[in-house]
């Protein structure tokens, strides 16, 4: 087998570029997939060169063996969609405390020892936060290490979970802003910070929801095309 990589072959680079064009999802994942595919192609072609084929013919044969860029990219679509979904759900979880802490400071019942009922009465979106966390935890578990024991959540359902959680988060932000504005003390500095944090997070959430919905549509379209082949 050749010890020199033959990835420099223009056709190999063009093939990988065509695969890359069909890969959605997180950039780091895409780069890893392309590096791995490039290595596999390189080894396949090098093996054919060692068996007596010319470099160009070896590259052509390796590419034929790997399949068309569309087919290869489509094969990774599910994994990339799941990776995107997990990433977006992780982002929702991380932003929860970053935004929630301000609302807790602004809306918490006084005195603190009033208990959970008073806390929910003061911040009525707390049950929504609970539902959101349960949905995120369930999706993480069934797309990760626990899927050996639990029913696996497919990429399309994981993206639906992202859309659902995103809508819940935006709804909670809007609701808590409405509660604050209706409370009669909107001029407090802490309140301004909390409203700003919620508005920024809601904007980002809507972006994530749109992205997840687009990925979902793409997966559905692809499944439909495959079914008609």
């Amino acid at each position, binding site marked *: 087998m050749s010890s020199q990589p033959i990835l420099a072959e223009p056709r190999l680079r063009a093939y990988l570029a065509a695969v890359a064009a069909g890969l959605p999802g997180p950039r780091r994942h895409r780069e890893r997939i392309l590096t791995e595919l490039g290595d596999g192609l390189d080894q396949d072609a090098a093996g054919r060169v060692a068996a007596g084929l010319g470099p160009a013919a070896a590259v052509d044969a390796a590419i034929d063996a790997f399949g068309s860029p569309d087919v290869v990219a489509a094969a990774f679509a599910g994994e990339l969609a799941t990776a995107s979904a997990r990433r977006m759900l992780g982002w929702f979880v991380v932003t929860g405390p970053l935004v929630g802490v301000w609302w807790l400071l602004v809306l918490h019942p006084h005195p603190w020892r009033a208990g959970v009922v008073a806390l929910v009465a003061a911040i009525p979106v707390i049950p929504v936060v609970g539902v959101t966390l349960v949905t995120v935890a369930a999706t993480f578990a069934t797309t990760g290490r626990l899927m*050996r024991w639990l029913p696996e959540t497919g990429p399309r359902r994981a993206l639906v979970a992202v859309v659902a959680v995103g809508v819940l988060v935006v709804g909670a932000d809007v609701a808590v802003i409405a509660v604050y504005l209706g409370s009669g003390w909107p001029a407090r500095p802490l309140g301004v910070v909390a409203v700003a944090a919620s508005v920024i997070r809601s904007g980002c959430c809507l972006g994530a929801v749109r992205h997840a919905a687009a990925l979902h549509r793409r997966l559905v379209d692809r499944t439909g095309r495959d079914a008609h082949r």
Partner: protein
Amino acid sequence: MRPELLKGHLDALLLAVLEPGPLHGYAVIEAVRAGSGGALDLPTGTVYPALHRLERAGLIASTWETVGGRRRRAYRLTASGQTALGEHRTVWDRFSTAVTALLTGPAPA
């Protein structure tokens, strides 16, 4: 061999070829082909995503290394993967015994 026959068994096959030691993606394809006497020639688009899914499930782990100027991702079986492989083997033994008994049973008199 028709690819649909592999449905449900791909995970077990990939875990089995990784049992002797770490392999990179292309070597996994080669190992399945060689280990099956050439009968199972899995497409790239099947093997690489399946390896990524197994890693997500914690059944295999991967490390990146540089070999001869190439960046290469090597996969190895985890302890969970070893356990899962044992379970796959048990299921397969029962399944194959039952199917073999039905398909090669005594001919009607």
